[in-house]
């Protein structure tokens, strides 16, 4: 197998097979945690870590899992990993864990996880599964980071909490757009990303 083919599970989800804008999974959390950039990045790291490890664990167990309870086994593995991530955040990054509140717990219900476990990890060896997990986690994260960039910039006038627009802009009448803070704008930004993405990838147009 050539190197390029080995890396396919890692590269594909970044654009061509992106979990958010092509597979349309994980939209819910993409709305919820993208008002600011810092939580979006922490969420990206958390989802990537959970997804990669869950993929590897399920892939290692794939020949032992009884078919009748395979979804439950997947859920137990994902839930355990998510609880660990939540506990680690509470211990080492309390501020961000407060900002993400229930959404870390809700990684369990993120469709990307179950989708990748069912579609990939159950039929593939651990190493490609690991790459697939990292790839999909990052593919999800790219969208989160782009969306949060625009929402924080225009909604709060800051990036990572630092003021971007100079004060004289505000004095001259510029105002932060409160709409950007609200979840519907995340959906609209995601739609704009899909629009641009489809223009670039003609074969994805329906």
């Amino acid at each position: 197998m050539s190197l390029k083919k080995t890396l396919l599970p890692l590269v594909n989800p970044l654009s061509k097979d992106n979990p958010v804008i092509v597979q349309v999974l994980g939209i819910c959390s993409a709305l919820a945690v993208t008002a600011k950039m810092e939580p979006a990045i922490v969420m990206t790291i958390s989802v990537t870590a959970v997804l990669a490890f869950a993929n590897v664990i399920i892939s290692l167990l794939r020949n032992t899992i009884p078919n009748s309870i395979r979804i439950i086994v997947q859920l137990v593995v994902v839930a355990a990993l998510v609880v660990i991530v939540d506990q680690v955040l509470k211990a080492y990054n309390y501020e961000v864990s407060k900002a993400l509140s229930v959404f870390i717990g809700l990684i369990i219900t993120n469709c990307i996880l179950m989708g990748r476990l069912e579609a990939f990890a159950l039929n593939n060896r651990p190493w490609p599964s690991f790459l697939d997990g990292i790839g999909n986690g990052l593919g999800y994260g790219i969208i989160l980071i782009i969306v949060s960039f625009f929402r924080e910039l225009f909604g709060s006038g800051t990036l990572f909490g630092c003021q971007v627009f100079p004060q004289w802009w505000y004095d001259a009448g510029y105002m932060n757009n409160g709409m950007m803070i609200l979840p519907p704008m995340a959906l609209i930004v995601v739609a704009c990303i899909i629009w641009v993405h489809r223009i670039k990838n003609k074969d994805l147009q329906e």
Partner: protein
Amino acid sequence: MNRQSNTYTIIYAMVLVLLVGIGLSVVYQALRPKQEENIANDVKRQILASALIVPSQGETIGELYNQHVKNSFIVNSEGNRLEGNAFDVNVSTEFKKPAAERRLPVFECETSAGMKYVVPVYGAGLWGPIWGYIAFDANGNTIYGAYFAHQGETPGLGAEIESPKFQDQFKNKDIFASDGAFQSIKVVKNGQEPAEGAYVHAISGGTITSQGVAKMLQESLSPYTNFFKQLSQGKEVSK
């Protein structure tokens, strides 16, 4: 071995759950001290914020708290002191009791503007609990600073009770009328004024949360009436 048999499935499930259970309890035990410290520091940060003390770069909350809050105690609604550590009082459970039975924490905070008395407040917003800390001057009447927080109020609307713009309105407001009756702080619509008493302006679009703040202040501060009266008369709180 038949992987689809019932026996295999049941044993598989039991072993998996057992392993995961053990793993999670180990993680929880290992991280718990660190988590409890974080929660305590968060409360300390809120108490200091109400007394307008914000840590600058490099200062830890724990040190700053010990520097400023040298004494804290619990009173009851009669104004008498009770046994116990004020920091350990769970305000949300105390709030469910009748006013006469509540244990009311008070934190003495030394600031550059003299001794301030910080008390916790607790109530309900639109979507969930709201809470805060109010710092009073030594006259037991005038608000020195206020800090509010919430669990899940609407961003941009109710969640604005967290903003300095809303909290700064409370500075220098009196909670007792000139005849000594408790009147709390009213929260009224922008541009309106109540007939009497101190007031602040509500958040446009955050009506229910704003009303929640008014109700929270009324219900959380009124049990302190006797304590504040003693404070204003310069009496040492009776032991």
